[in-house]
């Protein structure tokens, strides 16, 4: 295609071509490259566009538009069904009674299973909070017998509806995929009733290829079950699970010589009942992890009552991203400052009404990698906050502090503080605000 030149150079010819003339040029080019006969008409023969070009164009179109395009002629219909266009699919399963969003059309689903199930490689299911939607997902899964999936994601977009599906139904559907794919690389099954035996099936068939496994909040899995995965799947690079599945053995398995470097470990620490007791992980296990995978991210999300933090942060722990979803005490934050040298991101939802001045400054001092911090319902005096920012300096790329957190003192008022902080950060900064009616 001839490129249009700008007008400045004074050449007018390039900008004066009529569409018909452009088409002629395209056609000529195409005919030179592809077929010998060229229809001598002024209309472009879009039907003769090569399949590779069609494919490329179709990949830009949303499915609905593509489907319309496929009705135009046989050639375009063929292009529509090319395997390359069916590698990735996201099934959206919603019921009108429980969701505002539309669902993937059942006819489309039938079509895909019929004509394209063996092309599918990257599949995800997004289900709403109704059991029906989760069951529909399982039904589809059960039919993916010819699939060699690389990626599978079961995602609840609201309440975890997979947990409402009869366990056996779910397990048998999931096992179909495990057994048939044999090349699963990425598996997301958070909030599902997956259990130890099904993990064994997963491992038996996909241990060479599995790289990512996300299974937070899967209550039917035991520490032994996940240990089996760690022992066999040596390529595992990303793992997400709940704290009750974490054990010293697991960490050691992940640090074994045969294992690749772990990149990302996400742990959810959730309290079912107040006063719940949590086991401790030995420092030596964390040390082994660090030796084996010195760059790995350890992401921990805590949803505990304030008095349940006893077992945590008493020794050094290589956590990089820390989120406290409920109130966490000053004392615990103090321990965090002492024992988390690798900390990169810290988010505190709530703390209480005693200023966190010392704790923050300690964190600034010892957590030299800290580059992101978020504070919700906490209190920090303005002076301490400025000190904190000064100590961290420009490495703080994310500083998200609710306005109510900052307590003005004799040195700084709220209006002055944002200049001070901006100065030390090297960019304009304001606290986060909430609308006041």
């Amino acid at each position, binding site marked *: 295609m001839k490129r249009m030149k700008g007008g400045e150079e004074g050449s007018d010819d390039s900008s004066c071509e009529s569409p018909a003339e452009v088409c002629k040029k395209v056609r000529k080019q195409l005919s030179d490259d592809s077929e010998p006969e060229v229809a001598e008409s002024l209309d472009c023969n879009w039907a003769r566009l090569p399949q590779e070009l069609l494919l490329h164009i179709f990949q*830009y179109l*949303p*499915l*609905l538009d593509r489907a319309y395009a496929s009705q135009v002629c046989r050639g375009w219909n063929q292009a529509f069904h090319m395997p390359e*266009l*069916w590698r*990735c*699919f996201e099934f959206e399963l*919603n019921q009108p009674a*429980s969701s*505002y*969003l*539309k*669902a993937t059309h059942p006819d489309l689903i039938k079509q895909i299973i019929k004509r394209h199930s063996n092309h599918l490689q*990257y*599949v*995800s299911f*997004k289900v*709403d*909070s109704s059991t029906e939607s989760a069951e529909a997902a399982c039904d589809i899964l059960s039919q993916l017998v010819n699939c060699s999936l*690389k*990626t599978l994601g079961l*995602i*609840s*977009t*609201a*309440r*975890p509806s997979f947990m409402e599906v009869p366990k056996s139904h779910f397990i048998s559907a999931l096992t179909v995929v495990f057994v048939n794919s044999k090349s699963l690389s*990425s598996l997301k099954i*958070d909030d599902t009733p997956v259990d130890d035996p099904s993990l064994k099936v997963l491992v038996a068939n996909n241990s060479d290829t599995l790289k*990512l496994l996300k299974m937070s*909040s899967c209550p039917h899995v035991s520490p032994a079950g996940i240990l089996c995965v760690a022992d066999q799947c040596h390529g595992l690079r*990303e793992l997400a699970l709940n704290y009750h599945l974490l054990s010293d053995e697991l960490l050691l398995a992940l640090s074994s010589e045969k294992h690749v470097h772990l990149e990302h470990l996400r742990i*959810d620490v959730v*309290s079912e009942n107040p006063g719940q007791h949590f086991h401790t992980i030995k420092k030596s296990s964390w040390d082994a992890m660090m030796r084996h995978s010195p760059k790995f*991210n350890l992401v921990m999300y805590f*949803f505990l009552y304030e008095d349940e933090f006893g077992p945590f942060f008493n020794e050094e722990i290589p956590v990089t991203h820390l989120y406290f*979803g*409920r109130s966490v005490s000053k004392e615990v934050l103090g321990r965090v400052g002492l024992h988390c040298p690798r900390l*990169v991101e810290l*988010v505190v*939802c709530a703390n209480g*009404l005693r200023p966190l001045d010392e704790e923050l400054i300690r964190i600034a001092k010892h957590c030299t990698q800290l*580059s992101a911090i*978020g504070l*919700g*319902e906490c209190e920090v005096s303005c002076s301490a906050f400025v000190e904190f920012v000064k100590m961290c300096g420009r490495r703080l*790329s*994310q*500083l*998200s502090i609710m306005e*109510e957190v900052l307590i003005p003192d004799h040195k700084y008022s*709220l209006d002055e503080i944002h200049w001070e902080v901006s100065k030390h950060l090297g*960019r*304009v900064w304001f606290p*986060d*605000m*909430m*609308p006041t*009616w």
Partner: protein
Amino acid sequence: MVVNTIHWFRKGLRLHDNPSLKDSIRGSDTLRCIYILDPWFAGSSNVGINRWRFLLQCLEDLDASLRKLNSRLFVIRGQPTDVFPRLFKEWQINRLSYEYDSEPFGKERDAAIQKLANEAGVEVMVRISHTLYNLDKIIELNGNQPPLTYKRFQAVINRMDAVEMPAETITFEVLKNCVTPISEDHDEKFGVPSLEELGFETEGLTTAVWPGGETEALMRLERHLERKAWVANFERPRMNANSLLASPTGLSPYLRFGCLSCRLFYFKLTDLYRKVKKNHTPPLSLYGQLLWREFFYTTATNNPCFDKMDGNPICVQIPWDRNPEALAKWAEGRTGFPWIDAIMTQLRQEGWIHHLARHGVACFLTRGDLWISWEEGMKVFEELLLDADWSVNAGSWMWLSCSSFFQQFFHCYCPVGFGRRTDPNGDYIRRYLPILRGFPAKYIYDPWNAPEEVQKAAKCIIGVHYPKPMVNHAEASRINIERMKQIYQQLSCYRGLGMDASLLATVPANSNFGGNGTNPRTVSTATNEGPGGSSKDPSVQVGMSQTERAQSVQKRRHEETPLESSSKSWKQSK
């Protein structure tokens, strides 16, 4: 030529700072101030009894003030498009005035009336006085787009010309020779209706905690300023247990109905500040309440879909749950969480709750616990909250549910802890939920944890006399934070390097799935400014439900490059 004028009250229910009324009086021979009431809506519309009562009290107050000027208020039943042609003819009207309404529905309605007026040869006089500024000018100054972050908004405001002075109050001097023809049967034909006449059951209705009207508004303004002067401190007051209760200096409902002019408030605040702080320039934070209101009006004025998720270009498409049962529990104060239930009870009884209380219940309904759409919460507020007008209500709900305006979503208000920290003794709970009066402070926020003896002593068994908590908060917040993360991670795909992203969302989770091929309704907003960071305003891409990722990325426009160099993006998922 005789000039017969109608002034049409909608909001702006006041005689002070009413430039459209004042200007239309000049040269008029007769003046009739009207309010058009559609009584058919009283039963079916989403407006509760407190709002109606407040409105009627405003109208009574206007009528009383007009009486002092030998005039009256004319309350007309019907729809504007039916009412006006009739009135134009009957009263031989050649001039119509009203205060400018910036909301999309208002603009549409007024355009229709303008047309009718033009056809009838009626001159129309419109003036801006419900907002501090001309909102179109703000938008213009921001590159023809409304600022989508409050910081950006403040920056633009700083560059605007000064706020116009309030117009002179309507007095006998202003009226001069302008008269109002009042008939014998005025009360019958045009009197302010009562709640009963509108079909409300008023038996057992307690006195209004927030009495409507301009007189009350101006009195409160004086008190409000007195209190500020006495405190001599213009900082935002610390939240305490008392703040939760209705204040005799609270002004928000009066600003909403226009009983109090925002410009008057603005200037009085400025004068007071200068007096107390010896002529220092007031900081923008002094006008916080007014500027938030202005901000939402500005964002909403050109967006008729502002109060919806579907089709709203600035709203993140979040897969909210449809759950009418859960919604009803929340709306009626039966969640089993005393903090939430007390707030919703106060709201229903009185029509006002503190803004932090609003945050608490809004968070609980949406991203915090119930995962129900903010639109539902907005509708409940619309019914019950005296100061909820379309723009501010919708805007605030989107804000609080993290559906827009680039809010960090990590901050979740705990339905137990937040209340406990605000009012440790629990007096607020006892006041609005008398059934829980017997509980000691230790258990009043989570009575389900109280041992049986305590519940028995309090004469309130949880599950019998007061509901059990409808969700497990730890579990719900864990799930919801994960959902929000899913959504924001998809958004952050659109962000380039060097932009502030959401906390929590940057933690790697590779998506080597494409969403190709299906209804890509999950994302409609692509942004390139992060929250809490730079003062740059993102260019917001108009979201269309069928937009494919590739297309969106190509269409994205950058307003300005950020100041700082690229922040390390550890989101890379290789």
